[in-house]
């Protein structure tokens, strides 16, 4: 009896460690609600993870130590330098990649479970169902995240890539194949090919779902993939009867879903329509026919500097272009210079500016822009009519007045920053090419608007030089 009793004791001990670990997760995530407590919160969650891993290694009968260690060492060797060296502008693709490997791990676990239990034949039915759910979702998440990574890293073009109208039918067919193979397995079939069918159909589906999604929709897609990996982890937890997996996976599933929803709301679009994809692929002429009369007024760095130096309030609107050009530090310098000249400087942050939720905030925080200068859309929109100059740095769709006025525009109804209400607008832009979503922006042709063409970082630097000379 004694050895058995000690095993039971062990089990309880492990369970207690598990409870401690997920309490730490929740407590840590609560810390993320404020900038002051966030660092500590993240570290508390990391400690929770250490508890969970430690407790798991105590499970009686655990062997294959060398291989477990090998996996952990390899993972650390890849993960640590990647996280240490990534530039802040590249965070979205890093998160996509980390998210993808999580999904990949889930899919691999389900695959091995299938192989070692003669097609879940030795397990209760629910284990098979949850494992197969995890396999499908994990595989979709792995491949989808990899595509998102490739798009953000510009290995693949950011514009939507699709096979046209048939896309949705093909996607549905792929999902049907995956579910059909899974159903056959649950019904008792144990052919290895069926499981490969599940994983493969889900893999192709993951590719096909993310390929047609344009860069501007990336914040939504990354949140969604994050939620999916969380849900697949929770399903694995149920299949393996492991409480921390269920708790942690589900928390991520829930939080990812909230974020996805928030992002979709900020773009006034439904999640299904985003996933259906193809948004922005069509080159819309919007208010067509008047292309001939529209002229663009371009300006010089010197003029822009004078204009801003004599303003009483300047609002800077950063977008993905600022991230691409790595211009955040130059922008901070410019803002400082303007402040020394007595100009009030504020930053207007649209919720979906950039490629992931809160992307601009991270970059500006990196450049030490004070928290109080960062204004959310609802807070700043009332101020544009008192603003002398709106300086737009690599943002496009989030300033497009068509979203308010042109019912034909693909982004009609999306809440935007009302920069066109300010007395003048200066737009820093590489060229007249339309933005990531390929949508025409009448703001650029407005009477109050002046364009300053060139690399955002270089342009900001030139303006700063001119300001110093004033």
């Amino acid at each position, binding site marked *: 009896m004694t050895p058995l009793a000690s095993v039971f004791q062990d089990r309880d001990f492990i369970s207690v460690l598990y409870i401690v670990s997920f309490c730490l997760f929740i407590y840590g995530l609560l810390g993320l*609600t404020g*900038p002051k407590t966030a660092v500590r919160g993240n570290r508390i969650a990391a400690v929770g993870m250490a508890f969970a891993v430690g407790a798991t290694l105590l499970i009686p009968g655990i062997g294959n130590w060398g291989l477990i260690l090998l996996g952990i060492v390899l993972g650390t060797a890849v993960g640590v330098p990647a996280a240490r060296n990534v530039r802040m502008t590249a965070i979205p693709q890093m*998160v996509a990649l980390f998210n993808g490997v999580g999904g990949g791990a889930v899919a*691999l676990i389900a695959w091995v479970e299938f192989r070692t239990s003669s097609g879940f034949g030795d397990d209760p039915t629910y284990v098979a169902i949850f494992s197969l759910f995890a396999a499908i979702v994990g595989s979709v998440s792995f491949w989808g995240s990899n595509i998102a990574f490739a798009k953000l890293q510009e290995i693949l073009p950011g514009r939507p890539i699709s096979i046209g109208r048939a896309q949705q039918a093909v996607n549905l067919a792929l999902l049907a194949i995956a579910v059909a193979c899974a159903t056959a397995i649950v019904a008792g079939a144990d052919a290895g090919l069926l499981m490969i069918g599940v994983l493969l159909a889900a893999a192709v589906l993951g590719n096909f779902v993310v390929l047609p999604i344009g860069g501007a929709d990336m914040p939504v897609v990354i949140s969604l993939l994050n939620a999916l990996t969380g849900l697949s982890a929770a399903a694995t937890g149920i299949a393996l009867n492991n409480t921390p997996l269920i708790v942690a996976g589900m928390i991520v599933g829930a939080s990812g879903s909230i974020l996805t929803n928030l992002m979709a709301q900020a773009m006034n679009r439904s999640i299904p329509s985003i996933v259906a994809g193809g948004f922005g692929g069509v080159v819309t002429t919007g208010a067509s026919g008047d292309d001939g009369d529209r002229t663009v007024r371009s300006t010089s760095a010197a003029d822009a500097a004078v204009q801003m130096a004599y303003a009483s309030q300047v609002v800077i609107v950063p977008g993905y272009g600022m991230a691409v050009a790595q211009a955040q530090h130059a922008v901070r310098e410019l803002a400082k210079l303007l402040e020394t000249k007595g100009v009030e400087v504020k930053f207007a942050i649209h919720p979906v500016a950039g490629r992931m939720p809160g992307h601009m905030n991270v970059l500006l925080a990196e450049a*030490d822009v004070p928290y109080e200068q960062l204004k*959310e859309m609802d807070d700043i929109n009332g101020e544009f009519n008192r603003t002398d100059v709106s300086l737009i740095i690599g943002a496009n769709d989030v300033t497009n007045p068509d979203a308010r006025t042109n019912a034909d525009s693909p982004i009609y109804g999306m809440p935007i920053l009302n920069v066109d209400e300010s007395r003048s607008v200066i737009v820093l832009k590489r060229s007249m090419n339309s933005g990531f979503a390929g949508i025409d922006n009448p703001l650029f042709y407005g009477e109050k608007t002046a364009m300053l063409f060139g690399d955002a970082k270089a342009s900001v630097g030139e303006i700063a030089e001119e300001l110093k000379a004033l």
Partner: protein
Amino acid sequence: MLVTNLAILALAGFAGYLTISKVPNTLHTPLMSGTNAVHGIVVLGAIIVLGLGADGALNKALLVIAVMFGTINVVGGFLVTDRMLEMFKSKPKEEVEA
């Protein structure tokens, strides 16, 4: 066992919802990256299945990769979040309210 686990699942869903719905826009990127690290918890699943005896070279290889993936997810996720949040904290002087 299944029913207990489903109860845990449902409660965890609400806990996650309530925890996260208070996070301000500013912190959405670190939040996402932090929760991303949390779902690296799948590494537990990989360790359990590998540790409790998976036979055969292919199974073992797949599981070592799964452990590696999970570890990348956890370690990378927490580290990158930490780096990001340090920048939010490093605001020089006044930070009156949180």
